[in-house]
């Protein structure tokens, strides 16, 4: 009897362990996840992607340069799960107009961005008393960036011309910005007397993803890099306060892997695409005129990454600046972008936004809207006509519109 019991126990254990795979947690549906590489990368590129993924999640310590002041200690601190940011990581840009009417980013007083956190006995930065203009932002979703980066400048200029010709009040414009010293012009770029078209950032003030990554490393995490070797300085304390870590704190290897990771994160898959309410909602979206700015389809130019080359994709943005009216006017200028002008944000991933924001969607540039309805109603300026159309929709039609937006 004893032997039978022991044998039975052993059989149960063998059964349990032989069925390991079926008991273990399954992967979530691919359409519900965003932190995945685009299809078609080579094994070497995938390895590079994975290294970038690891760096994106890496938590930086004071010994590695997370001082003297910062906003977060990792890229994923703001872009949780590569998704849209949360108001607790809201960042603040500040500046003022000088006597000649030029916008001053107050670089000599710690501008353009406030680092309100500090560690290891440093003091956090505070807003300078003479700053007069402020802009709060939350982090954007970082997916599909490589596709946006591979659209050529001429496509954007064509969209400007198209919108201007339609004479319906929607007049997108490009933001010409002076690139950094490390900018290398590619075939997609058009030189305009040394200025180039910006396409990244809430006001399209960054020409390339490299610009964006270098800026974020310094202004968000307090890290110097091969591309920018000066620590953020808290001018309240002194004009030369820096940490005790030799600069640059990260090399070009780290920056390049982060840039590659962002370039090769996939764009989100649609969900419930065949639901009738989603199909109807998409038609309402078009009929209302939303697609004039939230352009459905763009095409990439040739790219050295084959998986990004000549791809048709659906970001729902024109990458252009539009005047969004007084309610969204932050009176903060970036390049040609005035206070009320914002780059059309891509709508892809909108339905997955709250999955990375703790279950509540925080929309618009600073997360002020907590529902799609609020976000739409806060559109003004060039979108005023579209909002009239929106307000004329029935509740059922609005429901279909939201269903479509949540399918993106």
């Amino acid at each position, binding site marked *: 009897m*004893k032997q039978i*019991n*022991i044998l039975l*126990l052993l059989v149960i*254990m063998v059964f*349990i*362990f032989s069925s*390991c795979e079926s*008991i*273990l*947690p*399954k*992967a*979530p549906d691919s359409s519900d996840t965003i932190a995945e590489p685009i299809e078609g990368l080579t094994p070497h590129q995938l390895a590079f992607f994975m290294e970038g993924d690891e760096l994106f999640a890496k*938590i930086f*310590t*004071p*010994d590695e340069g997370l001082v003297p002041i910062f906003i*977060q*200690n*990792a890229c994923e*601190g703001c872009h*949780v*799960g590569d998704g849209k940011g*949360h*108001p*607790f990581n*809201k960042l603040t840009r500040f500046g003022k107009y000088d006597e000649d009417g030029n916008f001053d980013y107050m670089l000599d007083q710690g501008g353009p961005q406030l680092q*309100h*956190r*500090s*560690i*290891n*006995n440093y003091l*956090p930065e505070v807003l300078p008393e003479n700053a007069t203009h402020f802009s709060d932002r939350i982090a954007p979703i970082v997916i599909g960036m490589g596709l946006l980066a591979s659209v050529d400048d001429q496509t954007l200029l064509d969209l400007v011309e198209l919108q201007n010709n339609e004479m319906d009040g929607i007049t997108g414009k490009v933001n010409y910005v002076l690139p950094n010293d490390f900018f290398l012009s590619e075939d997609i770029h058009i030189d305009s007397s040394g200025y180039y078209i910006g396409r990244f950032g809430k006001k399209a003030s960054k020409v390339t993803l490299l610009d964006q990554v270098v800026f974020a490393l310094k202004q968000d995490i307090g890290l110097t890099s091969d591309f920018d070797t000066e620590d953020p300085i808290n001018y309240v304390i002194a004009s030369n306060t820096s940490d005790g870590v030799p600069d640059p704190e990260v090399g070009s290897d780290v920056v390049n892997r982060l840039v590659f990771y962002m370039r090769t994160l996939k764009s989100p898959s649609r969900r419930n695409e065949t639901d009738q309410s989603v199909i109807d909602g998409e038609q309402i979206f078009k009929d209302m005129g939303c697609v004039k700015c939230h352009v459905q389809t763009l095409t990439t130019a040739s790219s050295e990454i084959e998986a990004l080359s000549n791809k048709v994709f659906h970001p729902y943005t024109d990458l252009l600046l539009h005047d969004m009216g007084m309610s969204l006017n932050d009176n903060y200028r970036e390049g040609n972008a005035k206070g009320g002008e914002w780059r059309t944000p891509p709508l892809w991933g909108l339905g997955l936004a709250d*999955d*990375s*924001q*703790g*279950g*509540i969607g*925080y929309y618009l540039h600073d997360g002020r809207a907590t529902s799609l309805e609020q976000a739409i109603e806060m559109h003004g300026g060039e979108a005023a006509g579209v909002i009239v159309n929106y307000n004329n929709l029935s509740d059922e039609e609005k429901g279909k519109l939201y269903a479509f937006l949540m399918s993106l």
Partner: protein
Amino acid sequence: MNKIIASILIMCISVGSVLSQESESIYKRPFIDFGKTAVGGYLEANSNYFSEDGVSEGFSMEMRRFNIFLFSKISKRVKFLSELEFEHGTEEIALETAQLDFEFSPFLNFRAGIILPEIGLVNSNHDSPKWEIIDRPLSSTSIIPSTLSEVGFGLFGNLNSGNQFINYHLYATNGLQDGIILNEEGRTHIASGKSLKSFEEDNNGRLMYNAKISVKNNNFGEIGFSYYGGVYNTFALEGEVVSEERSLDLYAIDFVLPFGKGVLQGEMVNALIDVPSDIVEIYSSQQKGGFVDLVYPLYKKEMFGYQNSVINACVRYENLDYNMGTFKSTGTEIGDEVTAVVAGLSFRPTDGTIFRANYRHHLTTDILGNAPAIMGGFQVGFATYF
């Protein structure tokens, strides 16, 4: 401190008899027979097969620990005990214990050296062969940083009256250090406050204090209340004050209760950490956690020629909140939680040897409280005293 010692002495007078040092949990190891000198230890290894959200690194084997004990009974009432730990082969070598126990009377002993502060259930009772589940409880490694061994000194003693037992410990140690905040975890992580430098000198000249009192009844089990805390940060350099003094306070309750033929045991711990206000949402100021283990014998007879061998079923529930509180900006609750359930079987051919098979289901919620990452996996392993 004087009041506490006086209270203990009064209690000693009021009870009938006392227990000797041998009743301490650290002496409940099979190699110690209280002869002159003894060498022993334990060995622990296991296999892992885990998958998180459908992604698995596959099967691997892990040589967790090889620990060597050296015990010496210097005289009838003076004892020395040490523990040298080799973790993952020689990846980490640590002198976990090197302590001298000097008995004034059974209820008043002096202990000094590298000691194990008495906080929670696991820290001074961490030997793997004693546990049915392969992984240590999360609250005992992440909040109570087991194994926490520190340079310190203090008093302990045991009293009993019939079925009632009281055990107390009072220690002062160099304590945990700045790593509680300055760490690679990117959050308040008490275990990162351990530092090898603390074996040489304290970082701030402020000792940490540890106290525990346990009450045991032979019929109803044992319950313990413990505290560990003090100033953890380097607030002065060369005598110049460069920061506020910041403190850590850990409060724990632990219990071991009979449950039919089995045992129900666990601990709950609450940690209060003083952190700068500008980073408090990332580096939390309060953490809590705990676990409950149920160990129940299924089959207790001679097996394979081993007398008194036993097969146990075990289950553990544990929860850990690394960051209690709400976001100022939204008023929503901060996440950063772990909840896990572990179930398993163990086979003890002898008291000091155990074979274990566990299944762990583990949910990790990020700081924003998004849908949890789900990890599951199997572990099979053994641990044995020698």
